[in-house]
Every structure is written in C-alpha cells, then in structure tokens.
C-alpha cells in the first residue's frame, strides 16, 4: 500500500503537492462527465444553438444571394453605372483589377425606317457578353412562342420588339435602316430582364450589336444618349469597388445597385431579409434560453462536487479554472459537430425544397459557419457563465451541512449578461439593430412582468397561513414556486420567451404573406399602356370596355421639372446629400386627379374638392427626402411655362401595386391646359393576348409595356420566400421543443425526489400525477398569458417600426397561448414524472 509509512511526522510527507496546469485535469473532468451522462443536456442545448444558428445563417445567406441574383437579373448586372458619356477609363480599369466582368450598353431614341414606314424606337447597342445577369428571350417570328437565348444580335443584325413589325410592316429577314446603316432583322425580341426602370419613356425596342454603332453615325457630340456600364462579380469585390468609386465618379455618372432598380422587388427582398433575420433572432433567443437552463442544471449538480473539491484543498480559483476549462472544451468540441449538423440541416431543407427554391443557389460560404460556431461560445458565455460563476462560492462546509448552497447569482448579473448576449448575437447575426433592440426590449418587459407577478404572489400567498389552506397536493408546487423565487422566474421566463418567439414569428409570417398576397393579387395589371393621345382616350377606353378588359383608372401624364421650393432654387433648398436625388435631375411624371388614387393613403392634409384649382399632393418619402412640408410652395417648369402650387397633402404610395403611381398629383383645374399624354394599366391573361394586335393596329402611337416577366419574377420570389419562411418556422419549433425539454430536465431532480418521497409516504399515482401535472399546467397557463402580452408588444413594435405593416391585436393568442402552454407543459410534466411512477422510490432517492 502506498500510504504505508514507517513513521508519520508532520514535517515529512511522501505525497508532494505542487501546482499543476488545470488543462489536463479539465479535459479529464470533461471525459468523466461525458461518460457519466452529466453533460448531455448542456451538450444538446449547445449543439442545438450552434446547429440551428448555422443552418439559419447558411440558408439565409444562400437564399439572400440567390434572391439578390434574381433582383440583379432585373438590372442585367449586379451593379451598373449610368452616364451620358462613356465611363472614365480609370474606373473601368479599377473594376477589371477587382476581377469584375464588364459589359457596355448604349441606349438612345432614334427613328428607324423600313420602306416608306418610319417609327420612333428606343435603340439599344449591346456587346456580345450582354446581359451579365438574367437573360433575353426571343422568337423566330413576332408573337410566336419564344425561348431563352444565350447570344446577342450579331454584327449587321437587328432584333425588334414584336409590336414594331406591324408598325414598320416588316418580317424576319427584311432590312431596316438605322442612321446610315442597314440592319437585317433576324429575331423578334420578347424579353429583356433588365428592361425594368423608366418605362414611361419607352418606345419599341430595336437591339443591335455595338460593332455597328459607328457605322450608324448617329452618336455625335451632344446626342441624347444613355450609357450603361454593367458590372458583375463576387459580393466582396463589388463592395470594394463600390466604396472606391463613390468618391471618384463624377456628378453625371450614377452608380446603381440591383436593389435600386425596382422598388417593388426591393421592398419584397428587404422584408424577406428582415423576416429571415427575425427568425434567426427568435432561434438565437431560444438557443440562449436552452443553454442558460442547461448551464443552471449543470451548475446545481456541481454544488456537491465543488464542496468536496474545496474540502480536499482546491482553491476557489482552481475550481473555477477547472470548470471554465471544462466548458471551454465543451464549446470547442460542440462547435464543429454543431456546424456540421447545421450544414446538413440546411442542405436537407434545400434538397427537400429543390423544386421551389431558386434554381441557382450559391454554395454556402464559410462566414455563416464561423458565425454559427461562434454562437455556441457566445451563448455559453452570455447565458451560461452567470450560473456557473456561483460555483466558486460553494462553501466547503457544505460537506457537513448540505443545506449550504451558494447565494444565487445576482439577478441583474444573470439577466444583464444574457440580455447583452442576446443583443450582440442578434445584431451580429442580422445587422438589424432596430429589430435586435425591439426583441431585447420585449424580453425585458416580460422579465419585468414576471418580477412584478412573483412579488404579487409572494405578497398574497407567501404567508404560511394561506399556504396551509391550500390542498395538500398543491402545497409543494405552490411553495416551490414561491420559495424558489429566482428559479421559478427563470423557468417561467424561459417558457414565456419560447412561446413568445414562436408566436411572434408565426403572426408575422401570416401578416407578411397576407401583405404579399394583397400586393400581388390574382389579375395584377400586367400591361401598361402609355403615350395614349388625348384624342384617342375615348376610343381606347371603349376598346377595352367592349373587350371586357379589367383596367385601372386612366391618368394624364404631364412631364415637368421641380425648379424651386418656397422660391429658393431647388438645388439650394435641399440638403447636401439630396442634391443628386434622381427626382431633381430629370423630368417628373405628374398627373391630375379629382380623387385619391387607389393604393394611395393620405398621411397629412386633405384631398381637394372636385373643381378646386389649387393644391398639390406629394409622395411622403420624396417629401421627407427633400425636406418638403405641408404648405410649402413648389414651382414647376412644364414645356417652358412655370407654375407654383402649395402642398396641400402628403400621401404614401404602394409602389409594389403595379398600378400607375405618381410623386406629384394636382387638381384637374391646375393642369388641364398642359400638354399631356395618357396612361393606364390593365390585366390580360395569356389567352387574351391576341387582343394586343388589335390595340396596336388601332392605336399605333401607343406604347405597350409587358410586365409579365417582372410580375412572374416577384411572384416566384414570393413563393420561394414563403417556403423559406416556413422552413425557418419549422426550425424554430424544433428549437422551442428542445428548450422546453431542457427547462423540464433542469428541474426534474427536485421533482423526482419530491415525488419519490410522496410515494414512499403513501401518495398514490393519481395524487402524484395531479400534483406534478397541475404545477406544469399552472406554469403553462401563466407562461402562455405572459407570452401573449410579450407577443402583442413585439409584433406591434416590429410591424410598425420595421416591417411597415399595419398592426391590430390578435385576440386569438390570448386564448391559444395559455391553452397551448397548459397542454404542452402538462404533457411534458407527465413525461418527466413517469419515472417516479415506474421506478421504486428507493432507487430514485438513492440516485438523486
């Protein structure tokens, strides 16, 4: 025997004590705890945190990139520079240096001739690699079935829009003259995905090769042309180039991102991104709660071992280092499999939804995985550290007096650590600071309600006399709730946040889907008719009416410039940042209307009475940007004439509606004498499109714009977004269930001991079930009610501050959440307590 010493003296010892690195010991503790099953709950919670956040981060990134690419298709590029002259060579050289692909387009209005016919066209010269994003569709004959093509018109060729064929009286193979050169018509062009913006000024398209530009002889100094330099490449290079070029582009060169091109697409994508952000946040919150509960249980089960270690000579610091070392190992070891599970999860979702997700999904990047892995460490540090720090305060005297538990960690410490972690995680994950703040505020509000509620309970039931009036089988539960005030609050908070996170996401999903559905209902107008001459308005209306076509209101279009605000030239009147606002540098499309157009909403002021001749209604966002308020006097220039009107109302416009929308609307009397053309939108289903031939023939000067491609794109994206939203929700529900499990597991020891004691004292199964399930049901109802409060607050703030959706209370959740709480927690309580019933009380008492 090693302790066998011939003589023992205090001076001489065979065992030499020397400080040793705790690294190895932490690792051994980890292995032992893992083997004995002590770690599984914490590991499961952390795995969930890492896996869910990785999956959501990966999925969001891939989907956002894919949607971004779809939006880019509408621009034909990831980014473009629009300018009246070719872009400065230095800028192009810099773009090439960053590996960006380039393609130049030139657009200009011109007259094209075929035989005796002449027609104004919007000519477009393209390079062979056009477009960099998206595609062109062409047909071999006008109005014949079309297909995607990967080429562009060759030298000497021209592609014409179908409606140009009858206007010019030409067919495929005929020649048209553009400037000084003859081009052979080889195809009918049916779709350019980048033909999105500025469609009010569209004439029919003629596309030809850039090589023929010089021979047309059209482009001379001073010609009214628009150069577009398309750029495409990876996101980081684009960002670097964007920052670099910001200072170097001159005032006539305008950089546009895909997001800038179409407000309708952009709004949908922004909202989708925000929703994905919200789902990630809710998942983070749940993961954090699960880790906090698991850490608390881990810490509580360590009280005895810490006391023994302290008794055996371990210092406070040594105990702390050992535990922190063990946890650091846990975090590191969990990170990798967590990320792998997360990757598999998102890949699984992508595979499952292959048919409905965008065809092109970029490969997952490394960053979401790093973020996912880091989430484990941050959640463990933020949510788990406070309960674990208690362990250093375990008194060694606990080996003699088991009732000596360390003082609970100060609530402010626990909650401020956790809130900070939540906030940082949410912000880090989504970059949405307002949303992160809203969730943090709502969580704090729930915490406050719980604290006040607990105080109320303590004041009204804390009295022993009142407690003893309760039925015997309710007493332990109520007593536990009251005595373990801090712990009860933590569990209640965990359940409440779980229900709240799920309810908020579910409600917002419904609101968003409704909103999207409302924005693009069936029969959304898919054609815009423009350049309708005043003399044709009546015949045009009659034509549509007799053809049973559903149309929007007809609006006159008067083009004019805003030149002064309150008699100050407009460039001096606006802020420095807005000097280059697009609205100030071009002619605005203005209209008059005696009624407020559909999909418009008055924010300030009143709509004019019919017959009134003064006043003006301005779109709210533009008014805000230009600093225009009610009563401000705006001066416009139309066809060389100036006129001034005071702002009498400010209105919001639903840009996503695919109906004619205007920045400025006037009373009829104010504009009726100005030169105008007319515009409206209407819906035609694919079978009725032959009507177009009739329209084009009867009104040859009218311009028709087919929006089907854009609408299809938006509808496709919305369908995909809906699927994405639902996948997120499923991941969130899974996370929520895991949280519930960890909360119940964290309190199960105490319940098992209590149950076993009651059984050994003669309590029946039924009594025990009533007692345990009753407590859980009570908890579930309370958590449900609190979650309903939290959900209303959060969804109100999110709807009004982030998603720009209307808000109204959802009465349903006030019944559904408490009911769900009672059922889910009651069932969970039953599952948890089954062991007490199925095993002998002696075994349980021995184990716990």
């Amino acid at each position: 025997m090693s302790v066998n010493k011939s003589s023992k003296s205090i001076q001489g010892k065979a065992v030499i004590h020397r400080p040793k690195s705790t690294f190895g010991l932490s690792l051994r503790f980890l292995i032992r705890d893992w083997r004995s099953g002590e770690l599984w709950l914490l590991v499961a919670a952390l795995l969930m945190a890492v896996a869910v956040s990785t999956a959501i981060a990966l999925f969001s990134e891939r989907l956002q990139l894919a949607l971004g690419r779809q939006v880019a298709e509408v621009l034909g590029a990831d980014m473009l520079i629009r300018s009246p002259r070719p872009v400065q060579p230095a800028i192009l050289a810099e773009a090439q240096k960053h590996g960006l692909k380039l393609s130049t387009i030139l657009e200009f209005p011109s007259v094209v001739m075929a035989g005796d016919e002449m027609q104004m066209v919007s000519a477009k010269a393209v390079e062979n690699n056009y477009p960099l994003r998206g595609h062109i569709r062409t047909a071999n004959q006008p109005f014949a079935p079309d297909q995607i093509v990967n080429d562009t018109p060759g030298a000497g060729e021209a592609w014409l829009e179908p409606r140009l064929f009858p206007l010019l009286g030409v067919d495929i193979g005929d020649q048209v003259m553009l400037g000084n050169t003859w081009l052979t018509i080889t195809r009918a062009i049916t779709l350019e995905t980048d033909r999105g913006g500025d469609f009010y000024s569209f004439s029919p398209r003629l596309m030809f090769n850039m090589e023929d530009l010089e021979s047309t002889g059209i482009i001379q100094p001073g010609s009214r042309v628009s150069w577009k330099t398309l750029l495409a490449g990876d996101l980081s290079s684009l960002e670097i180039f964007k920052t670099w070029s910001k200072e170097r582009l001159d005032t006539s060169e305008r950089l546009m991102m895909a997001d800038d091109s179409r407000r309708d697409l952009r709004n949908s994508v922004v909202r989708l991104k925000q929703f994905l952000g919200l789902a990630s946040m809710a998942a983070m919150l749940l993961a954090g709660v699960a880790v906090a509960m698991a850490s608390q249980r881990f810490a509580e089960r360590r009280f005895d071992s810490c006391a023994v270690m302290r008794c055996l000579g371990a210092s406070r610091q040594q105990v702390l280092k050992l535990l922190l070392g063990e946890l650091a190992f846990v975090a590191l070891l969990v990170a990798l499999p967590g990320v792998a599970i997360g990757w598999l999860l998102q890949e699984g979702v992508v595979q499952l939804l292959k048919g409905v997700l965008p065809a092109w999904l970029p490969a997952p990047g490394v960053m979401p995985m790093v973020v996912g892995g880091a989430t484990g460490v941050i959640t463990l540090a933020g949510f788990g550290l406070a309960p674990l720090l208690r362990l250093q305060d375990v008194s060694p005297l606990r080996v003699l007096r088991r009732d000596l538990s360390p003082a609970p960690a100060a609530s402010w410490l626990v909650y401020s650590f956790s809130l900070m972690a939540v906030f940082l995680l949410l912000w880090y994950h989504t970059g949405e600071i307002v949303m992160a703040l809203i969730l943090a505020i709502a969580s704090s509000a729930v915490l406050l309600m719980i604290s006040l509620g607990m105080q109320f309970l303590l004041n009204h039931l804390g009295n022993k006399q009142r407690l003893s009036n309760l039925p015997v089988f309710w007493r332990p539960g109520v007593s536990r709730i009251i005595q373990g005030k801090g712990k009860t609050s933590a569990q209640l908070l965990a359940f409440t946040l779980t229900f709240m996170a799920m309810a908020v996401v579910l409600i917002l999903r419904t609101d968003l889907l409704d909103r999207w559905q409302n924005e693009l209902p069936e029969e959304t107008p898919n054609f815009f008719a423009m350049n309708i001459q005043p003399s044709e308005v009546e015949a045009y209306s009659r034509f549509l009416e007799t053809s049973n076509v559903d149309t929007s209101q007809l609006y006159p279009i008067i083009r004019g410039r805003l030149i002064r605000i309150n008699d100050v030239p407009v460039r001096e009147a606006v802020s420095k940042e807005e000097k280059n606002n697009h609205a100030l540098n071009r002619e605005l499309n203005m209209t008059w209307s005696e009624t407020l157009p559909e999909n418009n909403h008055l924010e300030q002021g009143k709509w004019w009475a019919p017959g009134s001749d003064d006043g003006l209604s301005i779109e709210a966002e533009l008014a805000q940007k230009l600093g225009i308020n009610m009563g401000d006097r705006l001066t416009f220039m139309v066809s060389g004439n100036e006129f001034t009107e005071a702002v009498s109302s400010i209105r919001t416009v639903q840009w996503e509606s695919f109906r004619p929308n205007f920045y400025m609307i006037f009373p009829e009397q104010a504009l009726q004498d100005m030169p105008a053309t007319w515009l409206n939108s209407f819906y035609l289903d694919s079978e009725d499109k032959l009507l177009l031939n009739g329209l084009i023939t009867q009104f040859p000067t009218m311009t028709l714009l087919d929006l089907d491609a854009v609408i299809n794109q938006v509808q496709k994206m919305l369908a995909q977004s809906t699927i994405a939203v639902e996948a997120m929700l499923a991941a969130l529900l899974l996370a929520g269930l895991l949280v519930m499990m960890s909360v119940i597991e964290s309190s199960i020891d105490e319940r098992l001991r209590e149950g076993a004691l009651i059984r050994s004292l003669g309590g029946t199964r039924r009594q025990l079930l009533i007692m345990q399930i009753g407590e859980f049901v009570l908890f579930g109802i309370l958590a449900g009610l609190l979650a309903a409060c939290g959900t209303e607050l959060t969804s109100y703030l999110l709807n009004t501050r982030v998603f720009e959706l209307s808000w109204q209370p959802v009465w349903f959740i006030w019944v559904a959440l408490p009911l769900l709480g009672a059922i889910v927690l009651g069932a969970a309580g039953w599952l948890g307590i089954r062991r007490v019933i199925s095993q002998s009380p002696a075994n349980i008492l021995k184990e716990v």
Partner: protein
Amino acid sequence: MNDALSSSPNALTPEAAAETTASIESTSLAVTAFGLEKTVVARDSPLTILSGLDLQIKSGESVAIVGTSGSGKSTLLGILAGLDLPTSGSVSLARKRIDNLDEDERARVRGEHTGFVFQSFQLLSNLTALENVMLPLELAGVDNPGERAKNLLTRVGLEHRLEHYPRQLSGGEQQRVAIARAFAGEPDILFADEPTGNLDEKTGETIIELLFEVNQGSGTTIVLVTHDMDLARRCQRVLKLHGGRLEEIS
C-alpha cells in the same frame, strides 16, 4: 494526557491564545484550539454553539468527540478542519494558525495536511470509485494518481469495484472508497464525521476496523466525531462536547 487538554472557557484571551499557539508551534501538536466561540443567528436570536473551548491534540493521537445530537460536534469538526471559522478564538492545524487565513489559504492547508471521511460519504456521483480516490491526488498535482488510487482501493478490498459509480455501490462500499480517498493524500490529520452514521452496525464495525487498520503505522492523527460510544472507545482519548465545552471522559 490531561496536559494536552484544557476545557476552561475563560482561561485565555484571543491575544493570549495566539501567543500560546505560536509558542506551541515548535512542539508536535497536530491540532490546537484556544478560546473557541461559535455563535450563529437562528430565527433572529443568537445561539451559542461553542463557548470558550480549548483543545490540544498531539500528532499521531486518535481522539473521539462525542455528544448528543445538536451539541455542536460537526460544527467543532468543521472549525478544527478549517472548513468554517470560529466567531472568536484561535485554531492551528499542523502547526499553522488557520483562523486568520482566508478560505483559499485554508484550502491549501487542508489539501496538504488533512483527509476527510463523512457520514454521507460525499463521493462524486459522476466519478467512478477509482476516480473519486484519484481526485485529491489530481488536485494536488501528484504523478501517477491512478496507480496510487488503485493500491488504496485494493487495500480497502475494492479492487474489483474500481470502475463502479457510487450509485452502483452499497453504503459500506461507498464508505470504503471514502476511506481510501481520505488516505490518498497521506494526510497528517484525518477528520471523520460520524463515519458509521449511515451504516448498519456490522458494516459500521468493519469500516472502523478498516479505518484503524489503514491508519496503522502511518502515524496519522485521527479526529473522529461520533455519538457511538463503542466506536469512540477505539480512540486513545474520548472527549464529550456539552454546553459548548469539552470534557474528557476517558
């Protein structure tokens, strides 16, 4: 033997006790306490548990402290072992005064000089028998802790239970593991708190046999708290705690 024990409550002021402690540090005393007072607040009124208690225990001696339930035996043991602090008075352990040390310094003294056996065994449920015995050696940074721990478990007759968890062992077996753990660090002083309190009579006897057998020849000082007079008589001295003071009964 009487010279090693004084139970006069007012014999020394704390200052004088400190001087006395210093003067006896050169002698071979394992535990000394002078003028120990312990008062706790229970239900808003102070309760005196120890009142001017003096005690001296020589190296290698075995001493039993007996007393009725609630007489303060465990409180005294906690203070002597440096797990708790007296309200006043001084305590020295292995020639070091410990009542003026902070908790971490006392932990170091405990780690270097003491071993413990508890009524409730206090084995760590997530460690096997072998790992429980290895624990103090690992905390102290001893080489080959596994080998030493195996030897000790063999000595207490548990060589076939090395990989068992506490819940898989009987009460007697758990206490054997606790004894092996207590001797693992080759302590100068072993403190035992009701070591047979949770065991039946026969097992209790076996455990006590084992405790003394393992100690045989090691020269470890044993301080044992019990209410079992048969067990107490196995020790060289038996002291009774009554009214907050000690009196020698054999």
